[in-house]
């Protein structure tokens, strides 16, 4: 049993960098990864900007140190690259040294690959090496692929709760450690860009035709992104003697119970999730130095989330920003990626800017931080992630004392 959850490793890949160091540099220099869609064919290419990783699946395969014939789906490859980095920073060379598990999450799974071969799949006469991707379609396959490549056998699970998926994976991993089931867990999420999601979000009419502007009164929607983010979280036992990057001190999840996709106007689910995270951590809202908001840039999310934050913090909101304008909305991966940004905020005493913000929302008491702030001591960071289906999650990251 371990009462504390130590973060000893983290790895990520997204439109702003292929690893944590590159991502930090982009955050510091306000280099957004939002741009034109290049890797996949789409009739919406000219209309919607996206946060895309500028590497082909072949290049990602090489980046992950795999042979060409070992190539898997884009979702699995992104996940593996982030996991490899997380294990490296955690200094894990022998995976069998402790009871180790992996809880991954994804919303699209192998969808991107399936849609590339869709017409070939439909033709019963055709055959080719792509047939192996039929089995790679389902959400659990990317987790199995990653676990197989890094040798995790003790415990494996996949969560799919839309855009809060990786927050729930992190939370589940933490519980496995607290209950003494595992000593350390690789937790996070991965999602690749697909026509499937682009078309779906187009139909929901919540994609901004320009770069997204979270918390701006003139916000027009979100930008889709892709990426993967993973942590290595450990118990006191297995983390002994290691550098602790931060602690995961709180987590909470609830359901908004309002609408299939739209958040409730008062942010009831968001409020409950944050409240639970505070309860687990034993912290008070006044302890929080920075909030990394879900802040997608849609009219409904930002109002709902902002209203819940205003209520919980009694309109005394600390520094807050959404980093979605850097990476785009990376769906199942966003909670883990933004969790990494939260740890970086603690490690480097930095608050990352909420890009593209101009006009305050009259409904909210606060304005987000719009330029990089350095020097203020950051001890506790709250990070929110909310998904369709009303699934709302909140995580609290704290400086290791």
């Amino acid at each position, binding site marked *: 049993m371990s009462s504390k959850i130590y973060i000893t490793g983290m790895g990520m890949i997204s439109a702003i960098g292929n690893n944590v160091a590159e991502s930090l540099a982009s955050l510091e220099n306000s280099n957004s990864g939002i741009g034109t869609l290049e890797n996949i064919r789409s009739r919406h290419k000219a209309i919607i900007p996206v946060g895309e990783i500028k590497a082909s699946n072949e290049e990602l395969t090489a980046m992950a140190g795999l042979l060409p014939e070992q190539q898997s789906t884009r979702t699995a490859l992104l996940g593996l690259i982030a996991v490899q980095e997380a294990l490296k920073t955690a200094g894990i060379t022998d995976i069998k040294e402790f009871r180790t598990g992996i809880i991954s999450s994804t919303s699209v799974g192998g969808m991107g690959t399936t849609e590339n071969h869709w*017409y070939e799949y439909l033709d019963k006469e055709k055959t080719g090496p792509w047939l192996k991707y039929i089995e790679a379609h389902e959400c*659990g396959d990317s987790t199995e692929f990653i676990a197989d490549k890094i040798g995790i056998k003790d415990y494996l*699970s996949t*969560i*799919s709760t839309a855009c809060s998926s990786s927050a729930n994976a992190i939370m589940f991993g933490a519980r496995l450690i607290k209950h003494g089931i595992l000593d350390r867990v690789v937790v996070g999420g991965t999602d690749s860009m697909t026509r499937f999601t682009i078309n*779906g979000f187009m139909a929901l009419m919540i994609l901004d035709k320009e770069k997204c502007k979270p918390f701006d009164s003139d916000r027009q929607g979100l930008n889709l992104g892709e990426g993967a983010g993973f942590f290595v979280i450990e118990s006191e036992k297995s983390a002994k003697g290691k550098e602790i990057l931060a602690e995961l001190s709180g987590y909470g999840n609830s*359901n908004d*119970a309002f609408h299939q996709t739209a958040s409730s106007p008062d942010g009831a689910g968001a409020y409950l999730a944050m409240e639970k995270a505070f309860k687990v951590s034993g912290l008070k809202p006044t302890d929080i130095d920075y909030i990394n908001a879900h802040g997608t840039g849609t009219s409904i999310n930002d109002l709902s989330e902002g209203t819940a934050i205003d209520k919980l913090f009694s309109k005394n909101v600390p520094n807050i920003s959404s980093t979605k304008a850097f990476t785009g909305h990376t769906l199942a991966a966003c909670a883990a990626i933004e969790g990494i940004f939260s740890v970086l905020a603690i490690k480097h005493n930095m608050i990352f800017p909420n890009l593209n913000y101009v006009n305050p929302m009259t409904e909210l008491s606060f304005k987000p931080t719009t330029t990089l702030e350095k020097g203020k001591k950051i001890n506790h960071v709250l990070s929110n992630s909310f998904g369709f289906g009303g699934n709302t999650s909140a995580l609290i990251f704290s400086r290791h004392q």
Partner: protein
Amino acid sequence: MEYKNYINTFCSIKNGTVSIDGSISFEDKTLPAADFIKLVYKHFQISYPKFYKMDQLSRLAFVVSELILKNNPITLKNEDADIAIIIANSASSLETDEEHQRNISDKNNYFASPAVFVYTLPNILIGEIAIRNSIKGENTFFIFDKFDADFMSSYINSLLNSNKIKCCITGWVDFYENKYEAFLYTVEKEKGILSLEHTSDQLKKIYNN
């Protein structure tokens, strides 16, 4: 630290049969999956117009949830935030994913349907149950090869034993290509209608019933 939790009601819908607490309460083996689920909705006189807007997976989950909550109305005795919904399946939302894919793959007749896309996530079915009953507790959706009684019992028991929640609606809901299987049950800290101890063995027994 020896806590016991109890399964107080369970319901399954599979192979044209609805069973509540282990006894068959409705049967029709002639209909395809979608028609059968609609018939179950009508047979049990459930009235919720939004039912027809749901995809097949959500409809199936919704109907089973209505039946167990009618039998054991835990929402009346518990706070919204103390009730969890934890569900798993194997096919995720594949049935509806394919429908969305068909909508966007016909180059000449190309219209993504927002109402279809909404259901391309498996956890939307949890949202539907939550909306209907205003349940605001913890909720998660897992993807497994098959119903995993060991995992489900230990996961739910640990949630209950750590006082994160007071009760839970949980189980398995799968729908793909006319094949369907739903098995939901309630778990509480207190004894109730059935008072079956929530252990992996007990779960296997009632699941295979």
